[in-house]
């Protein structure tokens, strides 16, 4: 029997649904499992969970050690965000806006660190710090994060740079602006959406980075470093609890960032 177009279309739709559901489950189920594991009253990891409790969340929130490493993670991420966004904004202008000798080489070289295996990059940086005699700490981790994150943020902002007409800057210059005024009145407002996304990228990539921190943060711990250490030795449900908190933190940052973006768009003239 031949299939009618209507039946074929229904079949296609069903397949799309099954595929989408599979992908979503594969991506989000582990996160849900982690969250569930953190509500296990028992100290040891195992499904099904017999008794649910929030005591490990309470313990996590009360822990002085965890408070310290969360502060480390935030400090690193904030510093990385601030530095990378400045470097990347001007880097993106050099990448996409201006024509100069060596630009094509720069475009390739700046992107290479993204493709380096991070453990290798981390090891290389650690050896480098040792060679020049720098004691590793959360500050060296900031440097390591920057090596990997600046290229990503540069690319994110460069996309925005490609999207705007260079004659806008010329027009502003022609209408009497100084170079600084051109940047403040035209370049920055038009790049703002890209800069904002770049900032979110920078923070979140630093926040969740494990390999670079492992090698270069020295004695200072970060959330991913601690999660790993506790998985290797000394597991308690505080591990999934902190992991879930970190995920929720990232998710709310993303959500908040999106909302601010939306509000800024609304504020434009009708």
């Amino acid at each position, binding site marked *: 029997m031949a299939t009618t177009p209507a039946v074929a279309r229904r079949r296609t739709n069903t397949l799309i649904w099954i595929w989408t559901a599979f992908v979503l489950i594969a991506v989000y189920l582990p996160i849900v499992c982690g969250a569930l594991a953190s509500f296990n009253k028992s100290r040891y990891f195992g499904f099904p969970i017999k008794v649910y409790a929030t005591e490990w969340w309470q313990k996590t929130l009360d822990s002085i050690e965890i408070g310290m490493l969360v502060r480390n993670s935030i400090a690193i991420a904030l510093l990385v965000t601030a530095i990378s966004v400045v470097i990347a904004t001007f880097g993106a202008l050099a990448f996409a806006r201006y024509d100069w000798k060596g630009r094509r080489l720069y475009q390739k070289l700046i992107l290479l660190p993204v493709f380096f295996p991070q453990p290798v990059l981390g090891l290389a940086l650690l050896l480098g710090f040792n060679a020049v005699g720098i004691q590793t700490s959360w500050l060296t981790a900031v440097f390591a994060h920057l090596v990997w994150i600046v290229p990503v943020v540069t690319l994110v902002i460069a996309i925005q740079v490609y999207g705007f*007409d260079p*004659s*806008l800057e*010329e*027009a*502003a*210059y*022609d*209408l*009497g*602006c*100084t170079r600084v*005024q051109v940047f403040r*009145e*035209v370049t920055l*407002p*038009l790049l703002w959406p890209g800069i904002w996304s770049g900032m979110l990228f920078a923070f979140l990539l630093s926040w969740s980075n494990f390999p670079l921190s492992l090698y270069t943060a020295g004695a200072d711990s970060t959330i991913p470093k601690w999660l790993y250490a506790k998985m290797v030795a000394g597991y308690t449900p505080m591990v999934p609890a902190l992991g879930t908190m970190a995920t929720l933190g990232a998710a709310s940052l993303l959500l908040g960032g999106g909302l601010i973006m939306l509000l800024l768009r609304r504020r*434009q*003239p*009708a």
Partner: protein
Amino acid sequence: MFQTIPADAPPAHAATALPILQLVGVRKMFGGFAAVEGIDLDVREGEFLTIVGPSGSGKTTLLRMLAGMDQPSEGNITLRGELINDMPPNRRPTCLVFQSLALFPHKSVGENIAFALKVKGVDAATRKKRALELMRVVRLPDNYHDKNVMKCSGGERQRVALARAFAYDPDVLFFDEPLSALDYKLKKALEKELKDLHRETGKTFIYITHSLEEAMVMSDRIGVMRAGKLVQVGTPEEIYGAPVDRFVSEFVGEVNTLKMTRAGAEWHGVDVPGTFTLAPPKDGAALDEAFVVIRPEYMRFLAPGDRADNRLSGAVYNEYSLGSRIQYQVRVGEKVMLVELSRAHALAPGASREVTIGWDAADAFTLGS
């Protein structure tokens, strides 16, 4: 005492005023390529000068040098006697209306218009007052002041760009084909408005376009550019009526061009058979070889007994309606000649397509190149 001023004399200010802009030997090299090659030009205060040329002729490069966005490799540009070769755009009393218009998409219509005032530090109330004044000048309704500029139509954006340039209060305004993206009717309307604004404001306008038609409508003078050089500068009548070479004559519109060689006092056709009477070339050069350029509207069909300085026999093989006029394509041997007539003088439907066409020597140009 009274002086008689001939009717065709240029306006007094044009004859007496010093040039506001003066270009001497201006060249612009990009690598080994000369985009602009030795331009000498005086721009008079208050005139509407249009530079026309095909794409790649260097007209945009020339304009960018005048606006200060590019610097000449050689030569001098002076504004009211002051050398401005390296003066940056923000210090020049000039303003460029871009081809893309370059309106600030994150600013409202009013903010776009008052931008130059904001840069100067003028307070918000004065800025709004001035923006509204300028909006009236360019015929934009007051309630557009707070409108998102990206939500304006093509014609409205055009007006915003113009008002924004006026707010800077420049001595010279440059236009880089700002009308090229508009549909025909709107373009025609805006051309006339631009000409009106030029008269009302008394500013010097320098306009570039590839459309000579546009140039003819608006300009006091036209400069024709080819391959980085100014081939001819003159009033629209001079460009149309006395082109210096074939390039200029063909740029103005469709023309008939015939190559001729001289044998003694007689001119012989190269593309078409026969001997012809030629008007002497305007520059008085003695030529052995010449091109005769005849505009289609100066060609006519000859009935037996009609007299004309020159005549050719051929066959009509195509006719196009141009609205109020009709264009005939007449094949004369290998050559196709164009004849354009008003409808009143059209060939009768039944008339023979074997025709004699002719023109008078005085209606054609004799050119050396």
